[in-house]
């Protein structure tokens, strides 16, 4: 006999309460902000509250037109895309290389130690990475001393537009390579060991074993991680920490290269209180992000013959 809906609801009233609390939370912190994107099309003032988001005077596409015709738009657009793509280009393959290398280390202690220290940077704040840059890359810092000793010229890494992109890519790689290598290493351990023995008997070199057994063996994992990375493209590669990084390392010296859409939105929106304009820029950013994901998915399809989604 089927109990009535009311009885069943009563029986699970506690479970319903837990879930409804979660839904109420999502309504407030996710869905109202989602609907709030309408402020991109009106003239919103912060003190008009949540209701004001929907009742402010409608201005159509004015905010968007202003943003597209802003003198900074071209730079912002280029910086954002260049930063996303170049970070992905390095942060995605390097963990695979590290995992392959660690897998070839025969001494277990060495392997464990190196793996452990390599993913420690993942757990520290970007502020501390910024602090590290501030002692390593200054005019009289370690890196410049090394350059000078090798006969090179000292560079103002932290305050020149030209060095910003390499530095941003480098710090992203430094912070995240060890972490993502864990996934690939875990995947390598699931490869059937008898394959290696058979290959050895057939006289395959270690390099051949890496390319014909290990790499194909972790191919599904590589595909999954690539999907994750592409989904996070606008966030800046694998873990999506681009905003923090650019905001911290950007300064008056390198801003022409360091300013990306995310940091611009924060500065214009919150520091200069131009909420509707910044919301419009934010919407443009989301649209660019989606198109980038689409384009790279198309490219991945062409290259690997495998659909990502």
């Amino acid at each position: 006999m089927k109990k009535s809906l009311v009885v069943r609801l009563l029986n699970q009233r506690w479970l319903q309460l837990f879930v409804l609390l979660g839904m109420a939370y999502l309504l407030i912190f996710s869905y109202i902000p989602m609907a709030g994107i309408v402020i991109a099309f009106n003239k919103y003032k912060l003190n008009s509250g949540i209701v004001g988001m929907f009742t402010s005077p409608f201005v159509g596409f004015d905010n968007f037109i202003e943003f597209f015709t802003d003198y900074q738009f071209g730079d912002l657009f280029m910086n954002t895309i260049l930063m996303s793509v170049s970070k992905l280009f390095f942060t995605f393959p390097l963990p695979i290389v590290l995992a392959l290398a660690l897998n070839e280390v025969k001494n277990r202690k060495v392997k464990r130690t190196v793996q452990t220290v390599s993913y420690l940077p993942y757990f520290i704040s970007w502020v501390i990475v910024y602090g590290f840059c501030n002692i390593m890359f200054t005019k009289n810092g370690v890196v410049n001393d090394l350059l000078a000793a090798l006969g090179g010229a000292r560079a103002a890494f932290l305050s020149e537009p030209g060095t910003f992109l390499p530095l941003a890519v480098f710090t992203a790689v430094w912070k995240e390579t060890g972490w993502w290598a864990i996934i690939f290493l875990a995947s390598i351990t699931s490869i059937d060991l008898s394959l290696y023995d058979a290959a050895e008997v057939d006289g395959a070199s270690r390099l051949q074993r890496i390319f014909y057994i290990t790499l194909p063996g972790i191919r599904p994992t590589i595909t999954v991680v690539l999907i994750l990375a592409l989904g996070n493209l606008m966030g800046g590669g694998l873990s999506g920490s681009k905003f923090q990084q650019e905001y911290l390392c950007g300064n008056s010296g390198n801003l022409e290269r360091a300013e990306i859409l995310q940091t611009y939105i924060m500065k214009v929106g919150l520091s200069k209180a131009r909420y509707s304009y910044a919301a419009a820029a934010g919407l443009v950013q989301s649209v660019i992000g989606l198109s980038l994901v689409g384009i790279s998915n198309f490219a991945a399809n062409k290259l690997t013959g495998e659909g990502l989604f």
Partner: protein
Amino acid sequence: MISRRIKKSVSDHIVDIVVGAIVVVVFFMSVYPFYLSVVLSFNEGTDAASGGIYFWPRRPTLDNYIQLVSDVKWIKAFAVTLSRTVLGTAMTVFFTTIVAYGLSHSKLIGRKIYMGILLVAMYVSGGIIPYYAVLKALGLMNSFAVYVVPGMLNLFYVLVSIAFFKAIPQELEDSAQVDGARDLRIFVSIIVPIAKPLLATIAIFVSVGHWNAWYDSAFFVQNDDLRTLAYRMMATIQRSSTTQGTDISQAGIVSMITYTPLSVQLAAMVLAVFPILAVYPFFQRYIIAGITIGSVKG
């Protein structure tokens, strides 16, 4: 062992050399910035500003640490960060898992709709500006609550937890229900003990996030008493990078003060990393477990 008998080819030796090089470089590059920070934090700041310190302090001192612990601003920052880490982690772990516990029951009426709402919220966002407006309207701005309330429900971990709870045998709950236990009791006294590895994993990642956070302090808070540790470090570096290092050192010589804002910040940085280093060995297995759960689900 077969490998012993087969002679190594030239390419095998090249592999050895390349692997060795990668391992050494990765090890050195990962460790050195931490090491150098410790060294510099024990060196006179005015002296460190002239550079040339690589492996050990040139003019050893404890001044940076003494200055750090005698500065109310830094102490407050440590206290705020510690409170938000403890409180924020507890709230997030509890709320996230209890919502997931409800959603993990296939008999839950409206489950499909709830899951749909959840997934949309996970992938669609209105962006930072409308979010800011909502925080402001709720009166969260410029309060301690803005650190702990907005992150209370972590959608990624909700999904991970649902998968975990679903694997728990239904009979366990049923027998407790026969004994007259309510859902909250069942959750606390039966589910939580089983789910300890899950709770530990979530707690680690959430607490690290809290300990490291600076942007909510930078954008959502103006009250100087509420600044977090990471925010203070950030602000100190930014302020000192606008003034020249040599100016600071000359000012130091005149006034006989050996520390600089930057060297005090380095001491703070070492102390900020220390808790993470200290718990790191104990949590490693959870870290690996966490990323494996994550990669299966994600």
